[in-house]
Each structure stands twice: as C-alpha cells, then as structure tokens.
C-alpha cells in the first residue's frame, strides 16, 4: 500500500503558491517547505503504559526561504490563511530581511541565487501494515506480550521497557519552478532489558526499523532472545583493561563508526566552516581498500529515506569512500553554493521550525567476502564489540569517541564467555579505518535512533554495514 497524500497540504497549496508568487515579485528567490507530519508512540514498562502523539514528530507548519540579492533569510510559522498572507509578507519585508544594527566588525554573507531548476514530483513510499490499521489495542498487546515474555524468563530481569513509534510525513516544496510533494512512513521499535548489578542497573538495548509500518514489530520480537541473554550476561561484566586490541565489530558497531567517526566528518557545511579534516584528504586513502562507504536517502529503504530534502533537492546515492579513497562529501544546497559543488540532497531540518544543515541519511559500508566465524577465529587476543550505546563526532580532528555496551573477549580465535562493559573506543579515525583487514558478507542497516548535530537538531537516520575487523584502542 502507498502512503496517502495530506488533505491539509492539498488545501494549503493554492495559498502557498500565492505567497511564493507575491514574494518572488519582490525577492530574487523565494521558496516554502510545508510539513504535515503525524506520529504515535507506544511504550510499556515498569512506569506504566504511554500512548500519544510525539511532539517532535507531530508538526504542521511552514518555512519560507527568501533571497534579497545578497543573502538568505528564513521565517518559520504555523498560521496560514488568506488573511495572514499580507502579515507574513510584512514580517519578511520589515523584520526578517532588513537586518538593521549588525555590530561593527561583523558583515553579511554574499551568496548567489539558488538555481531554481524546474522539477515536478509526487511520490509516496509503501508499507505492508499501516499502524493505524493494526490499531492501538493490537500494538499495545504485541508490545506487552514481548515484555511479559522477557520478564518471565529470569527473575533477575527487573524490567523490559519496549516501545513502538511511527511517523507519517507529508512534505510540499514550492518555489517559482519547483513543485515537489512526498508522502513517507517509517516505523521503529526498541526494547531495553534491565537487570540489577549490585546497586547499579545494567541493560541491553536493541532496536528495529523499517521504511514502512507495523510489520517492524515482528523484527523487534526476533531481537528478544539475544537481548535477554546479553542483559543477563552483563550482570557479570568486568571493567575493560585499557589498551589497543584486535576487534571484530558487529554491524551495529560498524554503523556507529561509519556514522559518528566518519560520516559527520564529510558533512560539507563543516567544510564551509573549515571544521572538517576530510576537506584536505579528498582523493587520498583514508581507509583500507576493503572499505566503500555510501550515504543517500535514495540508496536504501530505511528511516533516513526520502525523495527530496528540506531544500527541495532530489535525493542521491553518494559514494563517499571508494575502495579506501575519499571521493566526496555530502552537502546541503547553501553549503554547495558556498563551495561551488553540487548539492547531494542532504539538506535536512529537525522540523520546519529549524534551519537546514548538511545531515546524513542512510549511511553504511558495503559488505565484503568474509564470515563472522572466520573473523573471530583470526583474533588471537581481542574483543567482539557489540551493542553501541553512544558516539560523538569530531570532524575537525577525526578523534573517535564511541561507547559500546558489550565487549566479548576473544582468546586464540574463540569467545571466552567473559564480557567487559562499558567500553570506550578512542583513537584517530583513519588509523582505525586503515587497520580494517576483514569485512563480512553480513549486512545490516538500523534506523532505530536519532542523529544530532552537536547537541541538537535531531533527525532520523539509519546506519550500518558488515562486520569489520580492525585494531582499536579501548578504554
């Protein structure tokens, strides 16, 4: 089934076209992104049951972008009707664009006009079971059944929180020459099994995602066995002895390295600010020849997928690293103008209320030819790293800061059963990527989480890849 169009956007379109027409008479360029998004989140845990529309994902409003022949300004608003149009025009003309009182020593940027190439698009994604069709009762029953199953398996499990969420996205982008509309549906779910460890609580978190609907609940259910087993194992976890080790990373940890350690570093708004080391490494080896890395809303079907970005640029498949060589970065439209490059369809906003930045979409390493078994067998003294818990980018210095929840000890090619937690991955990104000697056939993409730019601007992304073997500094 295809996601249906938004009646609200259909009704608002003539007014928005009128607004763009009027602003275009005064300014060199004017565009509007209209968003009508709806979500529902379901959560069951010891704190009770929660069902409701999530504020972050349930939004309706507009953002105007205007060019005055020199620079760009944006106005985000929620009120639109025939009578509001003159007031919106006045806000833009009198308060947004004049910019009086810029302090001495500060200047205004100078940009060219966005090339407003003609384009018309109307596309929708597919789903198997719409969450509305599955219904509140059935979704909560499914979540409760998984949770009860987990809690019934071992009395040491004090809770298994479980959630399911979906977002139906309708977006309309209008400029004098572009008329783009997309309708998307993603769903994801997560479970978190918790056990006491002395006065502390250890937990194992896993998630599942799909560009689709409630069918993801079946995938989530399939993750329960490993989550319960791992949470119980964590009760006996030990502290990591700092050092550099041979490590095999599961696809989830590979995804964290792809996304946090490298992906943020090729966001080209960081090139504009001279904040990314990658800018100076174009055409050079930054990884093992076994590594080919992609990003693109068009390349995979997951929570980072769409047909056009929040600046009206059609989605791409960008090959960032090809056989170890850094080929190109990803960019939003304004950064591309600044750098004289082509935008890659990565201009994304947290919502219509926020600025667009260069953001990742679906980001991953291509699979290789090895097997996980062979990779573990090849390690003399090291760890199988699993269950990433957090990561932070450092585009300027390519420093790694990623945390994993589970490091399984490997001695002489075999898992010993000892677990170390939590474990911090540190080091220099190219050192890690160049040390990759094995890449598995397995491939997994996961979009259960959110990505921030610094400490804000949350958007849905997916990341992943195969298992990789590398030398990594652990602490």
């Amino acid at each position, binding site marked *: 089934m295809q996601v249906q169009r938004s009646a*609200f956007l259909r009704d608002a379109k003539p007014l928005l076209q009128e607004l763009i027409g009027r602003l275009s008479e005064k300014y060199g360029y004017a565009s509007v992104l209209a968003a009508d998004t709806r979500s*529902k989140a379901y959560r069951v845990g*010891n*704190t*009770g*049951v929660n*069902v*409701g*529309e999530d*504020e972050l994902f349930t*939004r*309706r409003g507009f953002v105007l972008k205007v060019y005055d022949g020199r*620079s760009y*300004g*944006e*106005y*985000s*608003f*929620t*009120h*639109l009707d025939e009578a509001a149009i003159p007031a919106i025009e006045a*806000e833009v003309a009198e*308060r*947004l664009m004049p910019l009086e*009182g*810029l*302090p001495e020593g*500060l*200047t205004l*940027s100078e940009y060219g006009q966005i090339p407003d190439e003609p384009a018309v698009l109307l596309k929708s994604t597919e789903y198997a079971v719409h969450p509305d069709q599955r219904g*509140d009762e059935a979704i*909560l029953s499914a979540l409760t059944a998984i949770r009860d199953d987990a809690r019934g398996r071992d009395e040491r499990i*004090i*809770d298994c929180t479980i959630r399911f969420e979906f977002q139906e996205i309708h977006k309309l982008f209008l400029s004098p020459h572009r008329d783009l509309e997309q309708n998307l549906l993603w769903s994801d779910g997560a479970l978190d099994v*918790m056990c006491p460890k002395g006065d*502390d609580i*250890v937990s194992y978190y896993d998630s599942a995602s799909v560009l689709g609907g409630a069918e993801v609940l079946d995938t989530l259910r399939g993750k329960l066995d490993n989550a319960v087993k791992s949470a119980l194992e964590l009760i006996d976890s030990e*502290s990591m002895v*700092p*050092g550099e080790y041979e490590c095999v990373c599961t696809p989830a940890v590979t995804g964290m390295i792809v996304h946090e350690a490298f992906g943020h570093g090729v966001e080209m708004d960081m090139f*504009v*600010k*001279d*904040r990314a080391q990658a800018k100076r490494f174009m055409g050079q080896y930054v990884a093992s020849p076994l590594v080919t890395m992609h990003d693109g809303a068009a390349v995979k079907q997951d929570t980072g997928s769409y047909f056009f970005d929040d600046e009206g640029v059609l989605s791409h498949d960008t090959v960032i690293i090809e056989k170890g060589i850094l080929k190109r970065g990803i960019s939003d439209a*304004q950064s591309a103008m600044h750098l004289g490059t082509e935008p890659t369809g990565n201009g994304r906003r947290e919502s219509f*209320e926020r600025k667009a930045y260069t953001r990742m979409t679906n980001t991953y390493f291509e699979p290789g030819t090895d097997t996980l078994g062979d990779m573990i067998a090849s390690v003399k003294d090291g760890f199988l790293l699993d269950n990433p818990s*957090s990561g*932070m980018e450092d585009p*300027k*210095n390519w*420093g*790694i*800061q990623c945390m994993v929840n589970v490091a399984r000890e490997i001695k002489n090619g075999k898992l010993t059963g000892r677990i170390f937690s*939590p474990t*911090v991955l*540190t080091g220099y990104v190219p050192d890690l990527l160049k040390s990759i000697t094995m890449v598995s056939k397995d491939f997994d993409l996961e979009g259960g989480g959110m990505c921030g730019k*610094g*400490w804000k601007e949350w958007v849905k992304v997916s990341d992943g890849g195969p298992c990789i073997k590398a030398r990594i500094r*652990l*602490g």
Partner: protein
Amino acid sequence: MRDIILNALQALQITNYQIEENETESAELFFIKKTLDMRRMKRTKGYAVTVYRDFEAEGRRFRGMSTAQIFESMTPAEVEKSLQGAWFAAQFVKNPFFELYAGQKEPPVEMPSTLADRPLAENALLMAEALFAADTAQDAFVNSAEIFAVKSRKAILSSAGTDVAYTRYEVKGEFVTQCKAPQDVEQYFQFSYGELNTEALTEKTKGAIAAVRDRAAAQKSPKAGTYDLVLSGDQVATLMEYYAERSLAPYVYARYSDWTVGKPVQGANVQGEKLNVTLLPLSPYSDEGIPMVARPLVTDGALQLIHGANRFCQYLGIQPTGYYERMGLDNGTVPLKTLQKGCLCPVSFSDFQMDAFTGHFGGEIRLAYLYTEEGVEILTGGSVNGSLPEKQGKLIFSTERYDTLAYTGPFAVKIEGVEVAG
C-alpha cells in the same frame, strides 16, 4: 483555538483533560567567523491535549491517558477527530488510577528579565556583539556561532481547575573556537542565559579562545593510569545530575532506583565534602501546572526528596513537585588553585556523559591540564572512565562558583583515583 478544543472535548464527553498551549517567537543568527551566514525568525503556536479515561478491569480502577498534538491550522472537525483518536487509545492504557493535579486559576506570570526590555532581534544582535567582542586575536578566533533569542509563553488549563500561564525569555546558543598553530584544533561551547548577560558571554568567549590556544599547543595524551581528577564547569553540573535523576519518582516507582528519603546517598563513610544539593525552578509552574519552588534534594549527603510528575508522586504517596531543570550546589571549601595541585584537570571533553543507572561517568578528553610539582602540562586525548558511587565519598569542591541556566554551584570538583585510558 482553545474554545474549539474545549467544544470538541465537550462534544466527545471527555471530562478529564489537560490543555498545554505553547507559543514561541525567536530571532536567530548563524555566523561563520564574523560573517552572518543566515538569519531566521520564528513565530509558532501549538497545543498538546491530554485526555484521561477511567475504566475498571480485573476488579481494579485504571486511568488511561493519551496526548494529541493540535495545530493552529486545524479545522474544528480535525480537532475533534484528533481528540477522538486520543480518547480511543486511552482506553487501552492500563495505568493505576490517580487524580489530576488540582490547581487553580492564577494571574499570568511575566518572568522578569532584562531580555523583555527590547525586541528579540535586538537581543540577538547584542549577544552577537558580546560574543565577538572577545574575538580580537589572529591566532585563535571564533570559527562559527549560533545565537537564539527566544520568547516563549506557556499556558496550562486542566479539568481539575488549573489555569496558569507564564512568559519566559532566554538567549542561548553555541560557538566553536579555532586555533590553527602549532596544530589546527577547535573547541565547542554552549551558553544559555535568562538575562541579557552580555558580560558573561564575552568572558566565556575569552576563556574559550584561551582554551583552544592551549589545545593547539597540547601534543601528548595523558599516560594511562589512575589520576586524581578535577572536573569543572558544565562537567560538574552533568556529574551532579546523578543525584537528581536517581531520586526521580518514576525511577523509584519503577524500581530502577532504591533511593528513599533519609538515605545517605553519598555513602556511609564521607571523607570529603558532604553534598548539599537544591532543586531550583526555571519557570513558575511545571508542565502540569504545579507551582515550582526551590526544594532541598540532598542535605549533608542524605536524600531529602523524591521528586517528579504528579502521577508517579501520587503512586508513591508523596507530594508532587514537577520536573526540575536547574540545580544548585551549596558546596565549596578549597580554592581552585589548591584543588588542582597534583591533579589531572580535563576542561573539555568531546562528549562528557554520566549514566544515572550505573553512576559511570566519562568521555574523551579534548583538553586537560596536569598540575605537577614541575609545572603544568597541557594534554589532549585519552578518556576518562569513572564510577561516581565508588568515588563520591571523597569529593572536594572549589570555592569559585559557576552559573548557567541549568546549574549554580562550585566551578570545580576533585575526584580521587579515576581511571584514564591514554
């Protein structure tokens, strides 16, 4: 819109509800070096309506709840459909019964702030002027900055009598400083003020530029090992969140935390300073309309309060307090310079984190100073991995103070014997 919502609730015979009305205006400036790259304005309004549905099952009384987001642009029919959806969902939410917080009608509160004296755009430009006032050197400078001047109005109306509203101002943002030699490095900083605190921002930028200059000079990582650590600034605030989170009513109700009032949460054998922590309000009312006042959380190392939303506090049989966003710490006995002696003092991390479930804290060091008898060594790299429950008995705080929107208290804390990976 408020009338449309009330009419829809009446039409659907929904008698228990809460309406939260949020209105925001902002002026936003985005700089790349000293060039204004983008300016933005925002004017938005939205409503979150929570409906409560009572039912009985298996001989027990339940109160289900569900929230609908309502937009300015919705027609009355759309509003009714949305609330009907929430009402339908609420019947499957089997939460034990609780009473809504019963407030009353109060006059709207205009929170006093110097930011209210002029338009938002002017506030943003004044903060830009303050930020760049310290950006005078050639070798180390502000790489980029984002400034947000925000006015927000919140109103809360419930079927239990609550009818309150307040208006709040803030200026917040982030900036990055850069130094190109001897190595090209950067440092990230955030700021948030409830007043037009231009002097504080200029001072912060000045310190940020000095810090990035030091980081550029740093060549070595700390040797792996155990150090006496001095954390400072925002890291102290993050560390102290452990006590605020572990004492949250939902954590206690869910058995994620076994903390009780009176418990010596700092441990039985405190050889350092005994903690004195107060929860401080950032707004006059919580999201449920509960009046927010300063409340002691930890006194002399012992817990004084379990705190949180109305529902969980009722389940625990305690007075609801609302969620707090600011913390005050009444500690500090040793001047910073004395505290730093013999210690590793990380002043910047890529992402300093504290896990309230485990008490583990840590992160990758971006800039640290190691104070030894021979002098001061500037270091970068390596990572901290410590456990607050294990180390909290020997905390010593600086007499110097630090104030942000979320924290007021000692600038620094000394923690003995923390593992650092080189």
